[in-house]
């Protein structure tokens, strides 16, 4: 049975965390060791999301953990929220994606753009895991350019009718409610984008899992099709206003992902260190050979840098001064180094590294999705480029 994860903390970040932040991290760490790690290899190979973990995650309070207590949420600060994502992704990126979607892409828009009735109606049930949601922004032809979306919502006498399709939607097939972003005006008008809470059992709404994924296999990724889906007037998120709104949600999710990637990197590094000490070849542990030591030193260095980025980013978010560009830098860097750490771990593990009973290759495959979603690596590069130079190089 795997030993309990001891963490990676070369620069003593633990000492800078508050007691609550450490306690939150420790609880999720223990839960992941006990509940997720023993089953994730199997679920990944089978391509099944471990649904049975949802009640446990809800009981711990993992959904929307940084939203206020009055809605049944834990009311944690953002560093604690980040640590939750870190520990979940140390388990598996797909499971962390589930929590990211539920918290940052479903509960957050309800909280930020919803009416008081909507908040009271949905947030507590989403926090308790009774209602699972999904975030419908990306479309088959509009990924990096969400503003080009062609899903539309036309106002009717007693509500709205929605038409369109969304793709690559995490939780799509398990969700009871979908946060659908659609244009209420002309297709050229990004400002007409609004958010709608669409029950997934509405007539005309269908969700189908996308098959043949070689990454994020322990996660449900679906296509959504909306064909004359009618919703009442109060389905609209009244404070949503233009492309800015879904982008704000993405900023929340990306923040969590910057931490999550560090978790995946830590898991891989830990596996690499353990293996390098136990695997003996040519008469000594492979950790005694220079090439492996170089790999490990590189991993530790990048993880340490990424941890410090996260910590400061969290403090900025708690202070209310964090900018989306700062999040872009962290997401871009941390996911990139995590893919490197995962790949190098996979290589260090030799033949064993291709087996599901080791973590590296699963993380490696998962992280390729994390590299691409929530703003691809290249998109974040351009976000930073524009921030630095003031010149838009997107088109």
């Amino acid at each position, binding site marked *: 049975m795997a030993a309990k994860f*001891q963490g990676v903390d070369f620069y003593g970040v633990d000492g800078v965390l508050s007691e609550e932040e450490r*306690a939150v991290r420790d*609880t999720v760490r223990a839960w992941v060791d006990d509940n997720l790690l023993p089953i994730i290899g199997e679920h990944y190979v089978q391509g099944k999301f471990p649904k049975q973990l949802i009640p446990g995650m809800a009981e*711990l*309070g993992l959904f929307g953990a940084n939203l206020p*207590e009055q809605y049944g949420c834990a*009311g*944690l600060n953002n560093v604690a929220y980040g640590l939750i994502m870190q520990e979940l992704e140390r388990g598996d990126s797909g499971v962390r994606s589930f929590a990211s979607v539920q918290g940052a892409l479903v509960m957050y828009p309800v909280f930020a753009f919803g009416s008081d009735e909507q908040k009271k109606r949905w947030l507590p049930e989403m926090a308790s895991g009774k209602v699972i949601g999904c975030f419908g922004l990306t479309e088959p032809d509009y990924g990096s350019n969400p503003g080009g979306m062609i899903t539309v919502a036309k106002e009717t006498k007693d509500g709205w009718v929605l038409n369109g399709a969304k793709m690559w939607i995490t939780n799509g097939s398990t969700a009871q409610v979908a946060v659908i972003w659609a244009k209420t005006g002309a297709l050229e008008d990004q400002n007409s984008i609004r958010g709608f809470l669409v029950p997934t059992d509405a007539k005309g709404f269908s969700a189908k899992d996308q098959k043949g994924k070689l990454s994020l296999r322990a996660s449900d990724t679906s296509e959504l099709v909306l064909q004359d889906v009618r919703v009442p007037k109060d389905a609209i998120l009244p404070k949503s206003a233009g492309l800015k709104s879904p982008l704000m949600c993405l900023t929340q999710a990306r923040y969590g992902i910057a931490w999550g990637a560090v978790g995946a990197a830590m898991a891989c590094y830990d596996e690499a260190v353990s293996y390098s000490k136990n695997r003996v070849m040519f008469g000594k542990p492979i950790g005694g050979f220079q090439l492996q030591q170089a790999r490990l030193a590189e991993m530790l260095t990048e993880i340490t840098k990424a941890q410090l980025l996260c910590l400061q980013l969290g403090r900025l978010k708690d202070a209310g001064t964090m900018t989306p560009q700062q999040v872009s830098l962290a997401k871009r860097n941390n996911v990139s180094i995590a893919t490197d750490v995962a790949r190098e771990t996979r290589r260090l593990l030799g033949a064993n590294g291709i087996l599901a009973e080791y973590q590296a290759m699963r993380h490696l495959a998962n992280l390729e999705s994390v590299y691409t979603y929530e703003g691809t690596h290249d998109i974040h590069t351009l976000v930073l480029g524009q921030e630095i130079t003031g010149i838009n190089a997107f088109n």
Partner: protein
Amino acid sequence: MRNAALRIAVCIKRVADSETRVRIAADGRSLDEAGVKFILNPYDEFAVEEALQRKEKAGAGEVVVLALGGPAAQETIRTALAMGADRGILLQTDRVPADGLETAKALAAELKAGGPWDLVLFGKIAIDDYNHQVGPMVAELLDLPCVTAAAHLDLADGNGTAEREIEGGVEVVEFPLPAVITADKGLNEPRYPALKGIMAAKKKPLEVKPISPGAGGVEVLAMTPPPERKEGRIVGEGAGAVPELLRILREEAKVL
């Protein structure tokens, strides 16, 4: 189960995580705490969980957590508060006695002052010192019935039945309430401190009382690494190596 409010005390300890690499401090008598992770003693988790479940079943009552230790033990108390205990008391001293009886005396005095209790719970052992004694000693000092290493507990009006593992079987024990019980693995499944609980713990009362335990009757002379086992060897591969293994066990190790 009575419907009256239950007053339950749980005594807990802050201990070094067993995964810790043990390094001996410069004084040659104690653990070098640098880089050591401290946790709530795992057997105490069963005790806290039992208290919480009993209080929840009764519908009303109070679960009070006591610890004896340095200032850092407040964090350990808060872990129990995060699980759901109502308030905590730290008997603060920098010198945790080597003599379990001294610890027992301090806890018993505090329990006496804060009583009466319907139930006093402990973990059966602490995973740092493996002393196995503070729980029953406290019971003795408070003149309360005591069952140690309970893996199963049934409580009814004024009486209880416990099951404990003994060599080759399970002992079924009956006792009157109030009583002191020390918890063994299997008593229950301890809950994780929910994140809301962690936030709520900050607001729960935690009293810190400085104490000065006596010197006691156990003096630590030294702490040393365990005797080195002689380096082992692989005798052979596959079923074919069995005769050689047996020969070695017979002639070299002399255990057959």
